[in-house]
C-alpha cells in the first residue's frame, strides 16, 4: 500500500503496557520525511516511552512501526537508522567524552579522519572541546547532557530521537544549541522527533507539534495552530506561559452567540465555531491568553471591554503579569515591565473574542 511508504516514520495503533500499567493506547502518528516533530505533554504522559518504542528499545504490546516505509516493528534498534538522546543520558561511564562520541562510529567502520572531523564539529557546536578527554563522572550535569546530544549528532541517520536534550542547559547555551539543531536539521533534512518542555523550543523548532496526554495524542498541528486554535481545553491550558485564562459559563445561542458567566457577557459574533453551537444555555468554557488582552487605552479599541481591579502584580523580567478578576475567575494579563500598576488599582481590559477559544463542558472539546 502506497500510503505507508511515504512517511518517514509511521506509527500505527501502537499500544504499550508496563505490566498492568497501560502507557500508550492505540497511538497513531505519521511523520513526513524531513519533518521536525516536537512532542509536548505533561510529565509522565508517555513521551519517552514513545521514543523508546520507535527506537525499538521496548517491546510493544500492539501495533506497528514503519520507518522509511519499512515495517521495523520487529527490527533491532541498530537496523532502524535512528540516533537517540536519552533523557537519562546513558553515557558510557568508563569512556572519555571523545570515546563516547566516537564509539558508535568506530564500530560502524567510519574512517578515522571522518570520525575526527565529525567529533570536532559536534564538540564545537556543543562547546565541549576542552572536555573531550574527561570521563563523564568529571562533568557537570549540563556537560553530560551535551555529550549525550553529541553522541547522537555525530551519527548519520535518518531519524533523530531527542528526549529533552536541552533541559539542563542555561538559557544562552540553550538558544544557541536550538539554532544549531535547527540549522543541522535544515542541512541534513533528516526526520526529528523531539521531546521538550520548553515551549519556545517547541514553537521555534517544530514543523508540527504533537501534544500528548495520558498516552494519547490530543492534537498534532503546526505550532501556530496549536497555539491559537487548540482542539481542547487541555491543549489550550497546557501551552502558553503564563497560561490561558478560563472562564466557565454558558453559551447563549440567540441571533448572535454570546458567552455569559457571572456578571459578564461576551459577544461571540467574531468567533469562528468549529462545530455547531448547539442549543442555548449549553455550559462551556471561554479561554483567552493573557497576551491577547489589551489594557488601558488600547483596551477601548477592542470588541469586548470590562472594568476590574488589580489583585496581584507579578514582575517577570521583560514583562509583568497582572492578576485581576473577570466573570468571578482569576484573570491574568501581560503588560510591559515599565507599566507601574499597584494592587487595588482599577483597570480597563479588553480583547477580541476572535482570538479566544471556546470549549464544551464536560468534554473539553473546542466548539
Amino acid at each position, binding site marked *: *500500500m502506497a500510503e505507508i511508504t511515504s512517511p518517514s516514520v509511521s506509527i500505527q495503533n501502537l499500544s504499550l503496557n508496563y505490566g498492568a500499567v497501560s502507557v500508550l493506547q492505540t497511538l497513531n502518528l505519521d511523520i513526513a520525511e524531513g519533518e521536525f516533530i516536537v512532542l509536548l505533554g505533561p510529565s509522565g504522559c508517555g513521551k519517552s516511552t514513545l521514543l523508546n518504542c520507535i527506537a525499538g528499545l521496548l*517491546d510493544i*504490546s500492539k501495533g*506497528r512501526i514503519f520507518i522509511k516505509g519499512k*515495517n521495523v516493528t*520487529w527490527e533491532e534498534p541498530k537496523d532502524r537508522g535512528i540516533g537517540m538522546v536519552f*533523557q*537519562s*543520558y546513558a553515557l558510557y561511564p568508563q569512556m572519555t567524552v571523545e570515546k563516547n562520541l566516537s564509539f558508535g562510529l568506530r564500530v560502524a567502520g567510519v574512517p578515522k579522519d571522518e570520525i575526527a572531523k565529525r567529533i570536532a564539529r559536534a564538540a564545537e557546536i556543543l562547546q565541549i572541546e576542552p572536555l573531550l578527554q574527561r570521563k563523564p563522572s568529571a562533568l557537570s550535569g549540563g556537560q*553530560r547532557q551535551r555529550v549525550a546530544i553529541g553522541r547522537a549528532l555525530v551519527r548519520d541517520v535518518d531519524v533523530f530521537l531527542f528526549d529533552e536534550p536541552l533541559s539542563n542547559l542555561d538559557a544562552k547555551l540553550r538558544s544557541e544549541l536550538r539554532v544549531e539543531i535547527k540549522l543541522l536539521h535544515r542541512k541534513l533534512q533528516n526526520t526529528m522527533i523531539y521531546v521538550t518542555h520548553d515551549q519556545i523550543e517547541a514553537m521555534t523548532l517544530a514543523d508540527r507539534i504533537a501534544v500528548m496526554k495520558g498516552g494519547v495524542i490530543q492534537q498534532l498541528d503546526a505550532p501556530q495552530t496549536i497555539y491559537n486554535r487548540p482542539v481542547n481545553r487541555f491543549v489550550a491550558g497546557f501551552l502558553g506561559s503564563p497560561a490561558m485564562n478560563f472562564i466557565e459559563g454558558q453559551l447563549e445561542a440567540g441571533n448572535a452567540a454570546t458567552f455569559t458567566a457571572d456578571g459578564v457577557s461576551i459577544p461571540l459574533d467574531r468567533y469562528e465555531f468549529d462545530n455547531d453551537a448547539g442549543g442555548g444555555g449549553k455550559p462551556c468554557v471561554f479561554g483567552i491568553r493573557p497576551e491577547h488582552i489589551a489594557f488601558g487605552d488600547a483596551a477601548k479599541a477592542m470588541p469586548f471591554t470590562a472594568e476590574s481591579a488589580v489583585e496581584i502584580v507579578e514582575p517577570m523580567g521583560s514583562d509583568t503579569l497582572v492578576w485581576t478578576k473577570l466573570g468571578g475567575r482569576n484573570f491574568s494579563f501581560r503588560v510591559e515591565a515599565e507599566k507601574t500598576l499597584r494592587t487595588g488599582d482599577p483597570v480597563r481590559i479588553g480583547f477580541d473574542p476572535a482570538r479566544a477559544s471556546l470549549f464544551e463542558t464536560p468534554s473539553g472539546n473546542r466548539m
Partner: protein
Amino acid sequence: MSDHAVSLSAPSPSINADAWGPSGPKPRHVFSRRNIFLYGTLILVALYYLLPLYVMVVTSLKGMPEIRLGNIFSPPLEITFEPWVKAWSTACTGLNCDGLSRGFWNSVRITVPSVILSIAIASVNGYALANWRFKGADTFFIILIVGAFIPYQVMIYPIVIILREIGLYGSLTGLVIVHSIFGMPILTLLFRNYFTSMPEELFRAARVDGAGFWGIYLRIMLPMSLPIFVVAVILQVTGIWNDFLFGVVYTRPDTYPMTVQLNNIVNSVQGVKEYNVNMAATILTGLVPLVIYFISGRLFVRGIAAGAVKG
C-alpha cells in the same frame, strides 16, 4: 527476514499480512537461532559440569563388587541405597559409627555464626573503605590483599599461639574468629569494590538526609548490594561448611564439624576404600551449600541501581 517468514503468530484475518507485515510484540520463537545457540551452549556446558556428578551418583548406587569390576559410566545393575544410608548414619570413624549425621549440627553451629560474622565484618570494612576513606586505611587493606595469598596452612601455628594467648583456643568462638579472619581479605575486597561501583550520589543523598555511618550502611548500601551478598554467602558457606583443617585444628572433638567425618570416611590411607560410600558422603555433605546456592539465586536481582541517578 526469516523471522517473519516463519512467524507463528497468526496474522489477523481481516488484514493482508504481507502488506502490513509484523505487528505487536516480536514473537519469541522457541527454536530461534538465538535460542538454539544460547540453550545449546548452556546445555553442552552443563553436561560437562554434570558428567562427574553422574559418575559420582552412579557409583554411589553400586555395590563394591560392581565398582571393582566395572565401567565407571555404566549405570548400576542393581541399585542400592545402602552406601547413602551408610554414609549418613552408619559409617564408622574410629569408634563412632554414626556417619555424617554426627557432625551435622556441629557444622551448622560453626557455619551459621562464622558466615554471619565474617560477612558482617567484611561488608562493613568494605563499606568503610569505599565510602569513608581515612588516612592509612589503604595500607591495611593492601596488607589484607597480600594476606589473601598466604597459604593458610602456614598460619596454623601462629594462630594457635594467638588463640592460646587470648584464651580462645579450642572454643567455638575461636573458630568463628579464625573463619572471619581468613574470609576477611577476599570478602573485604569483594564488598569494597562493589560499593565503589555504586553511584556516589546515593551515598551523598543519604548523608544529606541525615543518615550516619551505620544508617547509610544498613538502609542504603545493604539493600542495594544483594547480588554481592549472595556471592559472599556462597563463598563463605561453601568455604566454612567444607572446611576441615580449621574445624579440626581449632576446636575440640565434641564440636568437630561434619567434614571431619567426611574426611574420615573418604581419606583413609590404609585399609579398604569404599568408593560408593565416599561418593554418597561427598554428595550428602555438598547438599547444604547446594541448597543455599539454589535458594539464594533469587537474590540475583537485575538492575539493582536502576532509576537511581541520571547521567
